[in-house]
Each structure stands twice: as structure tokens, then as C-alpha cells.
């Protein structure tokens, strides 16, 4: 056999090297084709001019414009607008509507002159198709409250209900109205997989331009939009990454879902401003009314008065003017300020001590914990890691009035499980205002009058009627304190100074078309 030249590789070594090179090349070129990039290679290179708004989108990808995303309002018109701070809403895709006195029949007028991105007109057929699609039994997205949808003419339809609905038209504006002529052939059961959500054809203030999978979606101002053209010409939804990092690196202009700790950090940055979105939920302490301790109204009131809720607001970085309340409330109530609420229990630890003493809870052995009939006032407080700060603050305040608390942290789903199974003493959780999902009964609180008033308030779509019953309900709840509300749960947004038009108490996706960029303002912040 001919000797191998010095330095030459054997066949086995060559094979190994070739294989390694192939694997590495394959790894490097993974996803290189970037299928799904509409407009790839066409037109000039993207110019991120000064009239571009870059929004950080956490936890989502290019399906953020779909029904499970947060930003479909940018490309699709809802039936109505987003809620204003006073709880009212404006017509949007619907130009107007009428209803019978008992609300069981509605006539909806679809706005004329609105077109889809392919220039086809938006009609009542699209609305009917979409509402039926979202309530389709295979889609399982929304319960079909309505009985029938009948098209009266190309821009009018009749919606009937078997009984007066509790949902308002605004509640239906969560359902994306989509082009029937493009989607009717698609299988409803595969709705969430439809490619349509990645490259939507909409009718909103913005239209889809192109996307890079898992990286971004670019939207441009819709020239066919029925309303005023947005001042910002281009919106870039940028997916993934840490919101704070992306803001500080100035990769994005706006980010939502900022944690209170992150918000405190951003307060120190002159380049940015903080905004607080609408109140989606309230954070409070659920007392387990099945335990004798928390069945006593005096104990619940005493514990509530021992908490410095202004201190809690400061702890989480919420504005000073945030109302302190003892009652379940909607976003519009919070937006109206403290005057909209009955006076809450004050922070009064001395009064709390007197209340507990009158109820028989006294520290007889001097260990700092009150007892009654030989039993100490001691309980376990469940909380998620995100609410740890609040739990520690409560533990400290309770200790000062002679109540011993042990904090137990639990994952969110575990906490809900334990509450649902009544396996808890007290728990810090978020409460949905509507509470048709049973937060009061879940805690074991029973009051027939409260149940009656709650049913009356919730079953009316007329805000005045709702408020009438709410005021009576608030009187009882404010007295009995079945839940101690600590603070509202508001989404925190951070925006660069260059972004103007941002407002508190509003969702970002509803604000975008009203925003504008001010580069001069941005300069002031960096000086």
C-alpha cells in the first residue's frame, strides 16, 4: 500500500470532517429561508424613519395580530371603540344601533364606506359570519348568547336574544370581525392555526406590511381607513426580549406589562415616562369565611384598618392619587377618582386594636399575639411571588396589632387551586370585577341581599341602572368587608419621551392611532 503523504488525512478522518462541516452548516443555515416574509426582496430597504413607533410585545409572536394576541385592534375595527375613562364607548365598525326596550332585539348598522385591505367592502355578512364563527361550538371562544342573526340589508342586521343580555355591545367588540369572502372556506376548528392571522387583511387604522418570523411585524398606515389617518406612519411590533432591556437599548419606544419593580427603575431614566393603564382587576385579600376567625366582621374590619394601603401604593410605585376602596369597582370608577366611592376604612391601627379587644382577642401572656379562649389569632397568608412585597407589608402591619401571620408563597395556579378547594386561610389574589365567576362564593361569604343586588347590577346593560344597584351593594360590602381590597391592578406602560399622546387609564392598542412622534421633546429628555 502506498504510504500516505505527511499531513494527509485518512478516509475516516475526511469523513468525520465532512460530516461535522455538514452538521455545522445545517445548524448555521437553520431557518435561513425565512418563509412567510411577505415582500421579501421587494422594494427599498426598510427605512426606520422618525415617524415609526416600535412597540415591545412580550410573550407573543407574529400571531399578536390574531384573536389570542393583544394588537389586532391595530388592523381590525371592533364593533365599538375601546372604553373611555368614563366607561363610555363610541361606534366604530358599527355606525349606530338601536334596541328594543327589553334589550332582546338589536338592530346593528354597519358603517358604510369601510373596506378590507383587498378593497372589498365590509358588509353585514362579514359581521354575521364573524359573530357566528367566534361562537362556533368547534372554536370554543365565546358562548353564543344571541339567538339569531338576520341580515336585513348589506349594512344592517338584526340580533335577537332569548332573554335580556348582560353583555353590552362593547363586550362583543372583543370578537374580531373578519372578511367572510376570504375565510368562509376555512375550517372553523382550525381557526387559531389559520395563516391569515400572520398576514391579516383588515380594515383598521393600520395594515399589514411584512414580518420576520419571531422577530417583528411591520404595519403601515392604512390609506383606506375610514377615519383620520394616524399621525404615525409605521408601527413595528417587536417580539420577545426583556422589556426593560429593549427600552434601555432604545430598540423599542413603548413597552407594556412592566412590573412595579421595573417601573421604579425606569422612573430614574429621563428618557422615559410612565403611564398606568385601565384597572383590569383589583388586588385584595380573600378571607376564608368558612373559618370561624374570618366569619367575624369585626376581625375583618380590624385587619383592614391595620393595613396602610397608601404605603402599599408607594411600595408598588402606583400614583399617589390612586383611590383606596373597600368595594368591587370597574375601571371607569377608578378613573373618576375617590369621590366615586364610599369612604373606605381608614388606616387606624389603634382602632383596629380596640376592635379586636372588644371581640375578645387579647394578648394575655405578653408574647405579642392575641388570644381568645386559649387560641391564638394566627393564620397562613397565601401569595404568589409577585405579591410577596405586599404579603410582607401585611405581615408586618398585622404583627403590630397582635396578629401572627405566616406567609406561604405559591405558584399562581396552585394558589387558585387551593382557593377553589377552600384549602386556605387568607390569600392575596386578583379579583375580576364582574365576579360572575364566583369570587364571593369562593371565599365562602354568603349574604342573600348582596347576591340579589349583584345579580341586578350585573344583569343590566344600562350603566345608570347598574350604578343604582351598585351603590346599595357597596353600602353593604363596605360595611362587612368580605374581601379587603388592597389596590387596583393596572398595567404599567413605559414610553420614550418622543412618543406623545399617551394617556393614563387607556389600553395601548386603542391609543396607537392617536399618538405622534416629537423628536424635539426627545432631545429635551437626553440633555
Amino acid at each position: 500500500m502506498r504510504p500516505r503523504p505527511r499531513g494527509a488525512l485518512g478516509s475516516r478522518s475526511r469523513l468525520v470532517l465532512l460530516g461535522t462541516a455538514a452538521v455545522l452548516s445545517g445548524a448555521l443555515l437553520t431557518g435561513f429561508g425565512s418563509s412567510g416574509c411577505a415582500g421579501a426582496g421587494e422594494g427599498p430597504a426598510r427605512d426606520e424613519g422618525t415617524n415609526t413607533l416600535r412597540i415591545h410585545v412580550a410573550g407573543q409572536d407574529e400571531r399578536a395580530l390574531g384573536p389570542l394576541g393583544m394588537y389586532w385592534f391595530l388592523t381590525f375595527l371592533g364593533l365599538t371603540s375601546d372604553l373611555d375613562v368614563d366607561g363610555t364607548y363610541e361606534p366604530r365598525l358599527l355606525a349606530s344601533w338601536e334596541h328594543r326596550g327589553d334589550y332582546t332585539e338589536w338592530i346593528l348598522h354597519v358603517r358604510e364606506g369601510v373596506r378590507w385591505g383587498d378593497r372589498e367592502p365590509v358588509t353585514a355578512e362579514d359581521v354575521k359570519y364573524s359573530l357566528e364563527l367566534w361562537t362556533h361550538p368547534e372554536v370554543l371562544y365565546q358562548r353564543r348568547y344571541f339567538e339569531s342573526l338576520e341580515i336585513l340589508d348589506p349594512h344592517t342586521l338584526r340580533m335577537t336574544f332569548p332573554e335580556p343580555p348582560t353583555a353590552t355591545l362593547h363586550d362583543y367588540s372583543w370578537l374580531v370581525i373578519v372578511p367572510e369572502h376570504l375565510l368562509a372556506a376555512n375550517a372553523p376548528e382550525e381557526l387559531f392555526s389559520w395563516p391569515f392571522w400572520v398576514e391579516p387583511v383588515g380594515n383598521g387604522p393600520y395594515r399589514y406590511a411584512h414580518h420576520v418570523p419571531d422577530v417583528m411585524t411591520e404595519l403601515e398606515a392604512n390609506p383606506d381607513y375610514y377615519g383620520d389617518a394616524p399621525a404615525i406612519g409605521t408601527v413595528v411590533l417587536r417580539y420577545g426580549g426583556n422589556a426593560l432591556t429593549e427600552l434601555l437599548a432604545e430598540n423599542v419606544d413603548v413597552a407594556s406589562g412592566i412590573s412595579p419593580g421595573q417601573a421604579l427603575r425606569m422612573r430614574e431614566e429621563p428618557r422615559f415616562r410612565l403611564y398606568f393603564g385601565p384597572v383590569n382587576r383589583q388586588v385584595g385579600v380573600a378571607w376564608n369565611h368558612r373559618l370561624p376567625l374570618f366569619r367575624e366582621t369585626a376581625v375583618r374590619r380590624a385587619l383592614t384598618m391595620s393595613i396602610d394601603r397608601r404605603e402599599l401604593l408607594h411600595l408598588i410605585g402606583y400614583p399617589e392619587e390612586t383611590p383606596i376602596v373597600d368595594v368591587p369597582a370597574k375601571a371607569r370608577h377608578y378613573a373618576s377618582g375617590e369621590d366615586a366611592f364610599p369612604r373606605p376604612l381608614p388606616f387606624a391601627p389603634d382602632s383596629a386594636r380596640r376592635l379586636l379587644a372588644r371581640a375578645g382577642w387579647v394578648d394575655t401572656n405578653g408574647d405579642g399575639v392575641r388570644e381568645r379562649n386559649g387560641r391564638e389569632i394566627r393564620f397562613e397568608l397565601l401569595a404568589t411571588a409577585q405579591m410577596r412585597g405586599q404579603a410582607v407589608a401585611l405581615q408586618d402591619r398585622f404583627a403590630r396589632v397582635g396578629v401572627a401571620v405566616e406567609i406561604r408563597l405559591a405558584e399562581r395556579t396552585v394558589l387558585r387551586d387551593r382557593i377553589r378547594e377552600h384549602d386556605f386561610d387568607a390569600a392575596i389574589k386578583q379579583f375580576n370585577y364582574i365576579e360572575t365567576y364566583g369570587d364571593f362564593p369562593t371565599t365562602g361569604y354568603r349574604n342573600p341581599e348582596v347576591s340579589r343586588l349583584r345579580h341586578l347590577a350585573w344583569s343590566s346593560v344600562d350603566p345608570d341602572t347598574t350604578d343604582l344597584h351598585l351603590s346599595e351593594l357597596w353600602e353593604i360590602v363596605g360595611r362587612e368587608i368580605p374581601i379587603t381590597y388592597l389596590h387596583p391592578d393596572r398595567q404599567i406602560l413605559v414610553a420614550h419621551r418622543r412618543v406623545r399622546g399617551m394617556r393614563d387609564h387607556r389600553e395601548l392598542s386603542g391609543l396607537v392611532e392617536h399618538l405622534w412622534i416629537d423628536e424635539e421633546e426627545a432631545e429635551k429628555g437626553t440633555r
Partner: protein
Amino acid sequence: MIRYVARRLLQAIPLLLGIAAITFFIVHLAPGDPMDMFLQSSARRELDPEVIAMIREKWGLNDPLHVQFFHWLGNVFTGDLGESFRYRRPVADLIWERIPFTIQLTVLALAFDALVGIALGVISAVKQYTATDKVVTLGSLAIYSVPGFWLALMLVLVFSVHLGWFPTSQTRSLDYQFLSFWGKLGDRLWHLVLPVFVLGVASAASTARYVRNRLLEVLSEDFVLAARARGLPERTVILGHALRNALIPVITIYGLSLPFLLGGSVLIEEVFAWPGMGRLAVEAIGNRDYPVILATSMIAAVLVVLGNLLADVAYAVADPRVTYESARGARE
């Protein structure tokens, strides 16, 4: 070899079935309700309880656990991994979209580990007891001790936020599709630098120390002395003879490190917003997205099995003195 590989694969089937059963029951028995995810919906609204009850019925969550298990297993054998509770899309689609990115990160991290780790190990062994050796040894120890996610955050802070040399996250730039072929390649590499470095550097530190020790052992053997006596250049002695023998066990370690790199990539994917399987798995656990949890767990189990098999085969291939049957014993 083919018979050996086939036998090992057949033996893996009952193992994987056992893993599937254990994983299934543990996941379903853990506290937490997957339907809670709908009560924290990202669409700013909560689903009607009646709809949630219908979803639960549709997904068979009301069935007895053993019924659910056999139903799931039967679907898996037909290639149906189920539908994600969170994304409402086929799990297979989600994994198909994500797994290439995890493989990309893992393979390149392995390559980095091999290149840098072996090079440093050789340098350290050749320069034993010198300042270079001390620097490499101490540096390896330091890097090995640093938590990967902390290193990732620090690198992002320094090189991305403050210096702006590298991107903070993601796989491509915003204007990726407007770039030329070479521009796209460069863009991908630019985005890979930090995540590959973070994922590979700890393994490289470990590899460097292992290679150093092995090489020092081999350099003291008779055949090395004989090679030197024959007048071969020192470079040929070390790289052509000693290193080849020192690397035999190192090669097999890479087969075993594959699943560990996959696990390590979870945190890295989170920091760099890398759309890989690790992130998908972590999100699924938080949301109690059972189908995704089960699918990703089974993929990890398959990788462990394949990794072990690869290690055994590689060991036998690299060292002709070792048979396939004894490869596992020799490796252990």
C-alpha cells in the same frame, strides 16, 4: 454495528413508554388547573365559565386519568401530539417551528465547546505549571462557577445595552429580508454570538480541564516517548499522536452532553428571546399546557436515549480496541 444499534433502539421502547407514563401522571397530578390560563388571558378578557367547561370536555380533561393516558398514547403513535391549551394550535406545529432554533443553538454551542475547550486544554497541558496554565485553569474554574443566566444578563448589559456591539435579543434583525445572502448570513451570525458563547463557554471550561488532564496522562505514555525518539516534531507528537488518544473519551462525552445542553438552553433562550423549544417548555409548565409539556418531555427523553447510544457508538468507532458491547462498560 447496525445490529447493535437496532437492538439498543428496541430496548429503548419500553424505557420511553415508562418515561411517558411517569411524566404523564406526574404532570396531571401536580397542583394547578390548565383552565386557569384562560382566566389570565392575554387577550384582556376572560373566557366564559361555560366555554371553559366545554373546552375541558373537548380535551378529555374530565375523563379518568388512565383513560386520558391511553388516549394520548394512542394519538402519539399516530403522530398526533395534541393541541396546545394556550396557543390552540397543534403541538407538532409549535415544536416543528421551534426545534430548529434549539438545535441551531445547541449544535453551535457544542462546536464552540469543542474548538475552544480542546484548544485551551491542549495549551494548558503543553504549558503545564506556567502562568498560561494557571490562567486557563483558574479562568475555567471561574467561568464554570458562574451561573449561565447571570453571565447572559451581564453580557447583554455590557455589549448590547451600553456598547451596542451585539443585539439584545432575537434571531434576526428587523430588516433581515432586505439583506443579500451574505448579509443574511452575517446577520444570523451576529445574533448568534452572545447566546452561543454563553451556552458553550461553561462546557468549554469543563472540556478544557478534562482535555488537559487526559493529555497529561497520555503524554507520559511509552508511545509518545517513542514518537519523540523517532525525531518527530513536538507539534506532530502532541497534535498527531497524543491528542488523538486523549480525545477518545472526550468524544463520547459530547453524546451525553446533548440533553444537558438542551436543558441549559432554556434560560439562555429566555434571556435572548430565542424562539426555541426550551422556552416553549418553560411557558407550558407555567400554563399547565399538558400536551406541550408531554411532547417536550418525550423529545428530551428521546434525546437522552439517542445521546447515550451515540456516545457508545462513537467510543467503539474511535477506539478499535473497544467492541460495541463493551463500549458502555469502558465508558463508565
